[in-house]
């Protein structure tokens, strides 16, 4: 018993150490974002007793930070809407209808999960250029949608499959069309699946850096993560401002994560964890 208790304390302390290793850097970042730059340079460790909010004001009002933020919102939001609509439709058809070719189409979509977008980047670059979608937010939205769709359809069709068939028949007897059946009866029932798909797709898109780096050139179209690299060049050694920028870039996902941590963990490990 003593041994068991001792080991429990051991594991507890491992988790506490991990907690400190994760939270201290994050706290350091936030604390430093509220201090004047030259004060930070003198005493990097001191607490921000008298929060210097001007750093945040400068981040928002000077430079392009606001437009980077807006672009990231547009691109992530636009992709998310497209992904959810298309995956709902395709997931419904593939998960609930039996027709010739169903399995072939499903198999084809699954192979899309195996293609690493990074390595098809050259043809994609030339193709987008030819389609007039290079240096365009819409182009980026379509590429993200295509990359996220296979997994999204896979997840959604699983949710549709798990609903009882009687639901469909009851709705049909009541005279509902197939589209009504989907939109009025089934969609409310697959909401948990939609949440997983939304998180699974939105976080990598919000955080992505590679595709905007290659596809977006105009300064006014740049996304937040891509813009941060510009921002870091502009404000080199103005620590307070830099840290405020990093905090603002990380904030939306942190807030969402603290509210929806369960769904985040499910969404980000979807595919890796069975059941």
């Amino acid at each position, binding site marked *: 018993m003593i041994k068991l208790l001792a080991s429990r304390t051991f594991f507890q302390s491992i988790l506490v150490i991990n907690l400190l290793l994760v939270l201290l850097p994050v706290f350091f970042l936030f604390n430093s974002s509220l201090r004047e730059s030259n004060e930070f340079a003198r005493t990097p460790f001191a607490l921000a007793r008298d929060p210097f909010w001007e750093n945040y004001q400068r981040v928002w009002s000077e430079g392009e930070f606001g437009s980077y933020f807006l672009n990231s919102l547009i691109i992530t939001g636009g992709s998310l809407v497209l992904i959810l609509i298309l995956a709902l439709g395709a997931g419904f058809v593939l998960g609930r209808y039996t027709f010739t070719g169903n399995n072939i189409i499903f198999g084809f979509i699954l192979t899309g999960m195996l293609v690493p977008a990074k390595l098809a980047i050259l*043809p994609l670059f030339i193709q987008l250029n030819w389609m007039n979608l290079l240096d365009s937010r819409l182009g980026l939205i379509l590429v993200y949608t295509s990359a996220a769709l296979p997994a999204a359809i896979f997840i959604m069709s699983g949710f549709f499959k798990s609903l009882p068939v009687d639901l469909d028949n009851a709705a049909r007897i009541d005279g509902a069309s197939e589209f009504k059946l989907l939109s009025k009866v089934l969609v409310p029932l697959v909401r948990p699946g939609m949440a997983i798909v939304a998180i699974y797709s939105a976080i990598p898109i919000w955080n992505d850096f590679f595709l905007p780096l290659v596809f977006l050139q105009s300064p006014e179209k740049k996304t937040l993560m891509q813009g941060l690299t510009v921002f870091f060049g502009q404000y080199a050694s103005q*620590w307070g401002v830099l840290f405020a920028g990093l905090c603002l870039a990380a904030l939306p996902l942190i807030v969402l994560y603290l509210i929806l941590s369960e769904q985040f963990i499910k969404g980000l490990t979807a595919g890796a964890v069975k059941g």
Partner: protein
Amino acid sequence: MSSALRRDQNRTTRALLIPALTVIIVFTTVPALTTLSYAFFSWNGFERSGLAGFDNFQRLFQYPYLEQLTAALTHNTIAFVAIMILQTSLGLLLAYAMFRVKRGLRLYRVVVFLPVIFSLVVVGYLWQSLLDPYYGPINQIITAVGFPELAKPWLGDTTTALPSLIFINLWRWVGFPAIVFLAGLNAINTEYIEAARIDGASESQVFRKIMFPLLAPSLTIITVLTFIGAYEWFDLPFVIGGSNGSPAGATDTLALMFYRTSFGSIDSGANDVGVGSALGVLIFTLVGLGAAIGSTLLRRREVEQ
């Protein structure tokens, strides 16, 4: 099924399936298939100028590309081995600790997974400032504890740059294997564990003889994902070391080299789409074959519950 219903279903199938399929075909399938052909053409900027046979592959294995290729491949391999050992064992330790503790599990879970949601750009810059040779708290702590000679420009020194990147990667990613292993542990039938305990097995025996073998499916997934991630490593090295893998190419990776040769960079000049594509085919083959062979071998040692 009535014919009216069948007609409605056929119409719905077409209306709902075609848009999704079109997007996937245009923006994933076609580029993925053409990427292979690109390696066999010669290129003038982004303009195709005739067949090249295996020229691009030959040039990839000659000066100046060969030196970069071997250096990058070495760094990717070091990263894979180090991440596999450190990240997986620490992840497993955290998972097992979370499995054993009763109080505070929810808080620990949220904190363990928190860095995984951070953008690698934010993580990269955060650690760059933490490791800053002058203002960085890490060196100040090392000095304050009494080892001033150990304080280094961690990211600027060719010997410590790659290990530092691997450490930052660990900080950001360790929550992922931890949560996957925790889910694996929770999926183990508790009867096995109870039975072993009644038979007098110690906790470490329970872990080694029952839990670890039953975690094999989680280990398979983690290994395959780590392999893919390590050989396509791009974001963190780019944010910290730029497209040339500073300092002096010490953090160069295959994906950085692919980016450089495909799109050009400030230092290495003009791009070479042919060689870039050949390198892309090489990486794709390496990652695809490795992941396929690895998952087949690993799956063979999984046991049924």
